[in-house]
């Protein structure tokens, strides 16, 4: 009897399967976008009030690699508009045949304008999608994101590939922050704020031009490449990068060169009533990449100390300038130190930490440079 039961079950299963495989989608008719650009719709009416439901607020432009080998171009760019991102995606079905798999895009670029109005609402679609990973890299573009996408690119198969490789390896090679969807979401927690790399177009090439400072999900400022270096060091994002130095002796340049260092930071917070003092100790450890004087590095102990001191003082100066800018201009904790205060006095500070906190604390920076070796990776 058990056999009959098994047989019945198997037959039911077969009938079910014959009647349709509901989730079946064939891979060669599916579009796999590599890169997405989110923009504000040009003629959008962002005033509050009753918006008609086909109002369009965002543009979604994607780069999709083509599949058929007979085509000349390796990718196609497709743009649609919608109320928010998912509805923009929904509009794609009218002009893009086949299935659409949003979950494989590895990079999303937001325009400045869109970032200023708050990114949570456009990031929501990506975050909720069950099939999406949370490792997409977010970045902000100067100007419209769409233009970044459309910059013609000759040396790489598509802009998607280029940007993917650029952003993915960015913080291993230089002091540039990188944010993933997950990082962005986690940085909405009390006391944290995201930063994203800034992409710009220079000489017809897309390149990093700094960092975008966010207050929760709205962009509030930009930092240039120089300031981004200090931002990364202060924020404690582990990176490797190259720092030039100029040694002056008796008013003359005695040595110029650069060092490759990794950065590490430690933060201590002390409290005195309502005054908080943060001490950020940054350690830059690495090796000398090059220098111009004829003094032999291996024999000249002083040279090493001089270089270390010079770089340390340069970095300290830059950091302090940045901190001042952060407290006065941005008024937002983009260097991720409030969490240490929260770790100790969470109940008290939880509600206050995002308002008027970072502007009123003391931040001291202490930089140490250690040159351990000569040569090595640059």
């Amino acid at each position: 009897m058990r056999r009959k039961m098994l047989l019945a079950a198997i037959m039911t299963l077969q009938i079910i399967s014959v009647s349709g495989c509901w989730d079946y989608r064939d891979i060669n008719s599916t579009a796999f976008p590599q890169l997405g650009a989110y923009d504000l719709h040009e003629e959008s009416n962002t005033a509050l009030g009753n918006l008609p439901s086909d109002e369009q607020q965002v543009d979604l432009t994607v780069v999709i690699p083509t599949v058929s080998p007979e085509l000349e171009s390796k990718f196609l760019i497709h743009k649609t508009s919608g109320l928010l991102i998912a509805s923009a995606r929904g509009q794609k079905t009218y002009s893009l045949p086949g299935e659409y798999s949003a979950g494989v895009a590895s990079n999303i670029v937001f325009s400045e304008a869109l970032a200023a109005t708050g990114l949570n609402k456009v990031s929501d679609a990506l975050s909720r999608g069950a099939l999406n990973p949370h490792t997409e890299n977010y970045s902000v573009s100067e100007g419209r994101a769409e233009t970044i996408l459309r910059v013609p690119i000759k040396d790489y198969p598509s802009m998607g590939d280029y940007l993917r490789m650029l952003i993915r390896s960015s913080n291993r090679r230089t002091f540039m922050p990188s944010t993933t969807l997950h990082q962005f979401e986690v940085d909405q927690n009390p006391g944290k704020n995201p930063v994203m790399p800034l992409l710009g177009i220079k000489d017809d090439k897309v390149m990093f031009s700094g960092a975008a400072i966010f207050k929760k999900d709205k962009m509030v400022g930009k930092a240039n490449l120089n300031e981004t270096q200090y931002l990364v060091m202060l924020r404690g994002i582990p990176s490797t990068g190259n720092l030039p130095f100029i040694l002056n002796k008796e008013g003359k340049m005695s040595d110029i060169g650069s060092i490759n260092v990794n950065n590490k930071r430690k933060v201590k917070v002390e409290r005195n009533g309502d005054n908080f003092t943060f001490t950020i100790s940054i350690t830059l450890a690495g090796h000398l990449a090059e220098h111009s004087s004829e003094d032999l590095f291996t024999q000249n102990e002083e040279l090493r100390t001089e270089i270390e001191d010079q770089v340390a003082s340069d970095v300290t100066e830059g950091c302090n300038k940045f901190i001042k800018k952060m407290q006065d201009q941005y008024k937002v904790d983009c260097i991720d130190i409030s969490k240490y205060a929260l770790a100790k006095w969470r109940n008290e500070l939880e509600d206050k930490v995002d308002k008027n906190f970072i502007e009123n604390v003391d931040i001291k920076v202490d930089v140490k440079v250690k040159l351990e070796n000569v040569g090595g990776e640059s």
Partner: protein
Amino acid sequence: MKDKTGSTITTKQLIFIIVGSQVGIRFLFLPREVSAIAAEDTWLVVLLAAIAPIIIIFLIDRLGKRMPDMGFTQMSQALFGKFLGSLLIVLFVAYTIGFESLIVRIFSEVTKLYLLPKTPLPVVLFMYVFNIVYIGSKGARVIGRLNELLFYLLLANFLVLLIPLGAADYTNILPVGAAGWDGIARGTVMAIAYYAGVEILLVFYSLVNRKDEILKAGMIATAITTVLYVSIVIICTLVFGVAGMQHQLFPALILLKVVQIPVIERLEFIFLFFWLGMGARPAINMGFAASLSFTQLLKIDEKKYLPYMLMGVGLAIFIIALLPPDILIVLKLSEYAGYGFYVVGIAYPLIFYITALVRGEKVKQSA
């Protein structure tokens, strides 16, 4: 009274049966629900809640020692008289079936969400129910062996959860005790509901071949479950922070979306592949327990009728699991299931044990 097929399970298999019945699918949203009350101290709360299963196991063990060789049904009828005893058994079976339907429903929802979005819910449910009926009909021995084998196979799955530690931020879990006594107390009460599954010992007690080791086995099982739960909670807290956990429906699963490793780009699919396919053990164990109790209640020959009973139970599960219209109601129902656990899991052994103490010698003679 042993399972009439003569099948018994070893104490090691008992450990894995208990663990398998507890760690089902609800651990996926355990961090979210408990951290809503206990904030950063969720891990502490989950740890404290482990007291409950320990007490329950202790009570059941003492109960069983007083009346060895009695199946759950017999025990109930001997202690409370035929009518009340049978009623208690029926309630137990109803609780089990309800709990199982819930679990199967959650499993199906997660499957539909991540793996098979367009497949109709009854089809996915059918596949789970088929597993329950097929595996359960093979008897206690096979269930014990299956739990044992699957436990080892699926242990590696949990190691995968350690990978996101690279993105962890230790400040998220400090300071300890921020939730205050009130938060911790309420959180503990809520966390106890996640240890549901241990009451299965009531039915499986009589099937174990070496009864003197049951207490130790139960402790080990509780320890394993606690370690698993606490680790998941800690990792989730470290990676997401308390506020971040509230945004996601299944934080433990989103955990795996956070990092990418080469080749296998999507960890959560790998995890789900093993877990959904082979993880429906709570349902299987409970389905078997329910059918067994029912056959004992109706005093029919177990060996012959167990498959039919299981089919009946399977049908009931299928129908009940289809009832809730959406996932939010399902999650609400899981809260009620938690309350059910307080009754069946905690109150039942307590009542039984006290009654056994009170009625003392009389019961032993009538056994």
